[in-house]
């Protein structure tokens, strides 16, 4: 107390926030209960990064899932967001209803390869047809984790299960299916490719329409062995990235330098830009046929292409198709949804 000279107050270290003033903590979720090293956890991390970097208010988001290991993961990101862990294979319908009720929200759904490709293939097909504005992530490990490692419909022909059983049916390519059916943003990525997955997710947030993102996400417990085509080592060896992806959101004033001729630029609906560099000359991500040919050709070589495979930034989404009013249907006041007495009188008169 001898020193009467006050020490100057230390200014608090400013916490790092995003463009809407939120800290990373606002985007985190609960503690994961998935296996250590599970690809799904890496995907949750990238979802957190993407929403943070894009500056999306978590209160403007709704998250959905079906049933399975994958479908637990919405509990592990965006805690301030309403979430709905629904029933097996039926997340698309729940998400559809919720987004019709409140089209001002951004929807993200997480499914698995069994949840989508087997029990949920019907709802998946019709979701793609409607082009509902929803980010639909398949956490794809080619097997059922929660029920101990059975093959799923995305397991490759000849792929070996942990117990030695060889898969004798061809896989469903969810990306090819989604393109065929009408999804307006179709991508494939790898849970281990941080940079690419983050760019894909950020572009998906900027897109208006169904974003179908198949993320190969190895199952460390049941499908990470020799003979599996969804193991970390196999995926690393056979991943064929479609050039380099960079995403520049509308709110960032960045000039991207690229060599003319080798870069495809996609202007997104909200003014953001997606740059696809060093892609093959005969490949055009805005062309369905070109995208489908790419998928088939890489599959024939035993590789899989990753990146944004198909995109149509201008395709009408389901909210537009249904011609919905701007305000969320859920919050329309009574006087806009209960017609007046004269309407009932008119109806009664017509029945007399």
């Amino acid at each position, binding site marked *: 107390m001898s020193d009467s000279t006050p020490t100057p107050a230390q200014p608090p270290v400013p916490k790092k926030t995003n463009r809407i003033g939120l800290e990373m903590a606002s985007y985190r979720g609960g503690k994961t209960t998935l296996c250590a090293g599970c690809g799904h956890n890496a995907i949750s991390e990238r979802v957190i990064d993407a929403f943070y970097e894009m500056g999306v208010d978590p209160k403007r988001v709704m998250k959905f899932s079906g049933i399975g290991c994958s479908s637990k993961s919405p509990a592990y990101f965006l805690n301030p967001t309403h979430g709905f862990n*629904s029933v097996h294979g039926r997340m698309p319908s729940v998400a559809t*209803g*919720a987004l*019709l009720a409140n089209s001002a929200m951004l929807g993200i759904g997480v499914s698995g390869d069994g949840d989508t490709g087997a029990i949920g293939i019907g709802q998946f097909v019709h979701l793609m047809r409607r082009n509902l504005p929803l980010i639909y992530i398949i956490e794809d490990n080619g097997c059922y984790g929660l029920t101990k490692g059975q093959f799923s419909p995305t397991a490759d022909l000849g792929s070996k299960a942990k117990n030695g059983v060889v898969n004798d049916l061809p896989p469903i390519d969810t990306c090819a299916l989604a393109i065929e059916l009408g999804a307006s943003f179709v991508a494939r990525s790898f849970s281990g490719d941080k940079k690419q997955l983050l760019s894909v997710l950020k572009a998906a947030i900027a897109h208006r329409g169904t974003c179908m993102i198949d993320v190969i996400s190895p199952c460390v417990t049941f499908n990470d062995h020799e003979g599996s085509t969804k193991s970390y080592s196999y995926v690393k060896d056979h991943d064929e990235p479609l050039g380099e992806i960079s995403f520049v959101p509308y709110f960032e004033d960045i000039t991207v330098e690229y060599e003319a001729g080798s870069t495809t630029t996609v202007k997104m609906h909200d003014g953001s830009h997606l740059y696809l560099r060093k892609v093959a000359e005969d490949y055009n991500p805005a062309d369905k046929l070109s995208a489908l040919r790419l998928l088939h050709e890489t599959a024939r070589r035993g590789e899989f292409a990753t990146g944004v495979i198909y995109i149509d930034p201008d395709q009408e989404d389901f909210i537009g198709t249904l011609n919905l009013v701007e305000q969320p249907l859920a919050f329309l006041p009574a006087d806009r*949804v*209960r017609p007046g007495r004269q309407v*009932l009188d008119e109806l009664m008169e017509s029945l007399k």
Partner: protein
Amino acid sequence: MSSVSPSTAPADAARTVPVTNDFSIQIATVNGSGSQTANLVLLRSIFQMGVPVSGKNLFPSNIAGLPTWYTIRANGRGYVSRKKEIDFLVAMNPETAREDVLALDPGRSVVYDEPLGLNSLRNDLIFYPVPFDKIVAEVCTEAKLRRLVKNMIYDGVLAQLLSIDLAEMEKALGKQMGKKPKAMQLNVAALEAGKKYAADHFESKHPYRVERMDKTAGQILVEGNAAAAMGCMFAGVTVVAWYPITPSSSLPESLIGYMRKYRMDKESGKATFAIVQAEDEIAAIGMVIGASWAGARAMTSTSGPGISLMGEFAGLAYYAEVPAVVFDIQRIGPSTGLPTRTAQGDILSTAINSHGDTKHVMLLPSSPEECYTMSMDAFDLAERLQTIVYVMSDLDLGMNTWMAEPFAYPDKPFDRGKVLDDAKVKELGATWGRYKDVDGDGIPYRSLPGTPAPAFFTRGSGHNEMAHYSERPDDYVKNMERLLRKFDTAKTLVPSPVLEASSNSPVGIIAFGSSHWAVEEARDQLREELGLETSYLRLRAYPFSPQVEEFIRRFDRVYVVEQNRDGQMLSLMRMDVDPALQVRLRSVLHYNGLPIDARSISDAIRGYEQAQ
């Protein structure tokens, strides 16, 4: 037929006693032949003469080519349930004509297409042969229109034979045809030609006639499904998801028509609703649950097979406590066969639809008016109770034409239930838990996405009262017991039963839904023919309110009338009612696919009572 004596005595006897405003007409045609307009014109013309009517369509599961029967009942006392006996047959279908004629009681009348030669089948009936093809050729020069116009000729013939005012038929035709002058002209000519042919060739030998009354003034004619659709619109529904299934489809289809006309936003021209024809019933209920979870008033409409498909989601909605409105327009069982025939066969399977311990609220409309009001009740109850509310209609109620007083404009504001708003967030503060019973009624507060209220993560069975993931036995039991408390609260909120008590009745009757009209008539039959007074409790909802048990306690015998084989409602009562009272319950069942009739009920009760 050699055993039938060639006497015309029954017909002569009938002629001596005129029967006014009390008969049934059955028109037998081929599905897809366009007879519906003619049938509705006939129904409406009698209705316009002030005589109570009902119209029931017995149709096959087929687009065209299979037999269909339309039955009209006219009854001055106001009975509108199906009459078991056919008094007047119009036989237009060669395929069924023989069987239809052989099934008639002696003394009844048959209008038939002359080439069918039906008069040789029996000589105890009154036959009116009409050369339809010949008459239609004179009226209608365009061959391709003749098939449709031909039907209007039988209306003209019946106008003459039953003393129906042709002007009323023309008025009814105008209502059907709208602004199509050419079609109107052609059909009026057919009506007139039919009437003229009958006047020139027949002398009425039957006793049946229509005479003007004043019992339908101001009333409307409507199908239950259309009434329910109106109820949904006035209930402020905003999200509808459905999958086509008979006999439910006309509900959402009517709704689409009303919403496009009356629910487009005036300023923007955009829709204040989303209606989705889903890929199946599972997706339909999933969309409804998603929409309701996000705060919309959402509904679907289906029939038995759809209810089965929705089972898994129904359990999720029960456990996660998400509101939803589901119409079940009941019909006979699975797959191919009798999907176009009526039944009350989904009572038990719907009440406990899903896996695990699940119980659902069901509303039981018995008239188009209740289809309308209970649609609005259903949305209020679903949001108040945060659970699925099923509206259990049936094919007879939903698709057939019923008289009703014009519907009243709703006088209550919407009940949107316990939703966290700013004030409630302040009041409950950080102590809010999604599944906490704050008010002691078992109903927690929910928060909606897109509002400032705190979020929660929705799951099925595994959660504690803070909506955190939990597999703890005590959390599960606590939650299940609260859900039971909520079901007890439901008993106080659902529409109460309607009691019609007689002071000196030894027996009670319990019924619900479309059986109501036949029960009313059966009670009159029992009183008038047997001197048996009955008291009657009409159920309007499940869970049962305490009045149900009180009613059973008052009588030695209580007949539970329902349209299924296994006494499903009675089984539900057994789960809830004092076991000592259960011996008093006995079933009166009707399940042949036809709408229930009064005689079947009064005969069954008479048999039981006489055996006492």
